């Protein structure tokens, strides 16, 4: 990592709540992260931790109601995204921020050809003339490694394999030359060999197009392959962040440690896998204090009462655990964000 990296996206204190009649689900509860130019940042966590909702919120895609942005700021290339109205958002979405979603089967429209779907962002955002649209579409399909692109333009989504559909999704996300791509579990539904191809593709495109990538996944294996930096989320908050080597080689938060410990691998054969007791708390009924304390092997009395702040370990390696940092409970509030 070089120091001259400028910040493309910065999210500060983002809170997204979902209200129903008798409860408030605090899906995202004060999340901070940033993505710098030409960087791949992974947001990793188990289902329900708020990683997808964070991404949807910064794109203005959280349905309101029942959703509600309860606080925070999202800045994209210096501009505030949360204040924008829908029309202003549309000039950003799909044009300056591309999106790739988990299921290529359901995110492509089955009744339009691939060509028509790739042409859409080019027509709407760039207002290109038709012949140029076709040329550009062919180039895009070629870029994402699709065989005989001319033929594929006339195909419908069902005629393509899962991997090809995901390549088409990526081509559409790239269509307008975005500065940032948000990819939400783009390889989860794919086979490992296809997954490896897609990850390599994203990697290569990022280098050649100079984009930044915010990659959302629950798969720590994928993170280890593509991330420059990682944010680990648990129950709506970031619990640890750092460069991928720091977080994987030297995890500091007990949750990150437990996650890595619990991954099966051939090297752990014959040993019992560590398994985190209990389950992820429901976003409407989170425990007081540190949200991980009921499952944490290192929890002390103070963890039940105070929301821990972020503690620095090494250069840019930060974890929300004063116990791991060896700090006194009395000092908690002086580190990082004050408890609320």
């Amino acid at each position, binding site marked *: 990592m070089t120091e001259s990296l400028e910040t493309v996206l910065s999210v500060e204190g983002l809170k997204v709540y979902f209200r129903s009649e008798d409860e408030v689900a605090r899906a995202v509860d004060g999340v901070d992260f940033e993505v710098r130019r030409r960087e791949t940042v992974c947001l990793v966590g*188990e289902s329900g931790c708020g990683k997808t909702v964070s991404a949807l919120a910064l794109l203005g895609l959280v349905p309101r109601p029942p959703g509600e942005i309860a606080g925070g700021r999202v800045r994209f290339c210096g501009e505030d995204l949360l204040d924008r109205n829908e029309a202003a958002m549309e000039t950003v979405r799909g044009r300056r921020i591309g999106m790739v979603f988990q299921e290529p089967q359901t995110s492509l429209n089955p009744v339009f050809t691939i060509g028509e779907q790739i042409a859409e962002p080019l027509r709407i955002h760039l207002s290109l003339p038709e012949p140029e649209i076709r040329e550009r579409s062919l180039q895009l399909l070629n870029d994402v490694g*699709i065989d005989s692109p001319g033929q594929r333009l006339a195909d419908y989504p069902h005629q393509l394999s899962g991997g090809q559909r995901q390549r088409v999704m990526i081509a559409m996300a790239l269509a307008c030359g975005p500065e940032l791509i948000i990819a939400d579990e783009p390889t989860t539904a794919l086979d490992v060999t296809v997954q490896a191809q897609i990850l390599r593709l994203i990697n290569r495109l990022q280098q050649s197009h100079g984009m930044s990538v915010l990659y959302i996944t629950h798969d720590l294996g*994928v993170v280890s*392959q593509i991330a420059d930096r990682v944010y680990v989320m648990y129950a709506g908050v970031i619990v640890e962040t750092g460069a991928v080597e720091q977080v994987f080689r030297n995890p500091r938060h007990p949750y990150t440690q437990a996650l890595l410990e619990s991954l099966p691998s051939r090297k752990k054969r014959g040993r019992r896998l560590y398994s985190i007791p209990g389950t*992820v708390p429901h976003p409407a009924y989170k425990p007081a204090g540190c949200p991980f304390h009921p499952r944490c092997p290192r929890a002390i009395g103070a963890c039940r009462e105070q929301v821990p702040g972020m503690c620095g370990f090494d250069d840019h390696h930060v974890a929300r655990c004063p116990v791991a940092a060896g700090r006194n409970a009395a000092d908690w509030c002086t580190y990082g964000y004050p408890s609320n």
Partner: protein
Amino acid sequence: MDILRIEKLKKHFPIRRGFFQRTVGWVRAVEDVSLALAGGKTLGLVGESGCGKTTVARMILNLLPADAGRILYKGVDICGFSDRDMKPFRKQIQIVFQDPYGSLNPRMTVGQTLGEGLRMVGTLGRQPAQERLERLLELVGMAPAAVDRYPHEFSGGQRQRIGIARALSVEPSLIICDEPVSALDVSIQAQIINLLKDLQDRLGLSYLFISHDLNVVGYLCHHVAVMYKGQIMEYAPAEEIFENPLHPYTHILLAAVPDPEALKKPAVAILDSEHQESAMEFPEGCRFQVKCTEKDDRCRQFGGELIPVGKDHFVRCGKA
């Protein structure tokens, strides 16, 4: 002794087109599959989606008739058995499904679901049945209170425990696990894997473990069979497969598996553009040659038999 032996199993599905549903071709879903699973052990069956793993499982359970081949369960060929003949074997061979949401009846309480199995094994009065229900739940690490609750009240991991308890309710010796942990979160996945291992140790169960996740397979399985387009490409003890893989496809699979401990960029052993290959399309000779990085002219002539290359190690590749 092998609890399960499969010999030259075959299943082709017809492709029908047109008004008269004429058969225009065949999907050769499973071709010449032979496997052996020793009692108390775990055999991993790996391969990408559509390679025929689940079709093999369905034939073993006799939910799908095989076209040819033998399925020997404890030495008895159960292939082609009628429902009546199959009945005693249904208690012996059970399955745990991938999707813990879709595989439990939402209208039945956990007690009712498990009770069906328990009734199969013997006629029991109300009281002892209750006791056995609770023992079953305890076996899979659940509280007895779960008996009166419905599937929707449980999380994915808990439901998978119920699915396992249901399989165990008839006291089987062989359980087919069809991707049992791939729908679960990491922290829950470890709980279920530990549970499967504990149950194997306690009850001496044998598992046919179908998965696409080689990290799980490497952790859990004693033997591994790698499947591609309906054929076993390589079969060997787990250490052999990982330490000394011989088939180019096994190489590619292993290279594609993300290893969280390695922190490496995605491997290069794979073709970068995607070849559109339909399920009906089978090249002459080796089925893998289209994607193979080491193919030459001989691959077209390859007869396609499993070649023994070492103790317990077989490869379907002309170059091995």
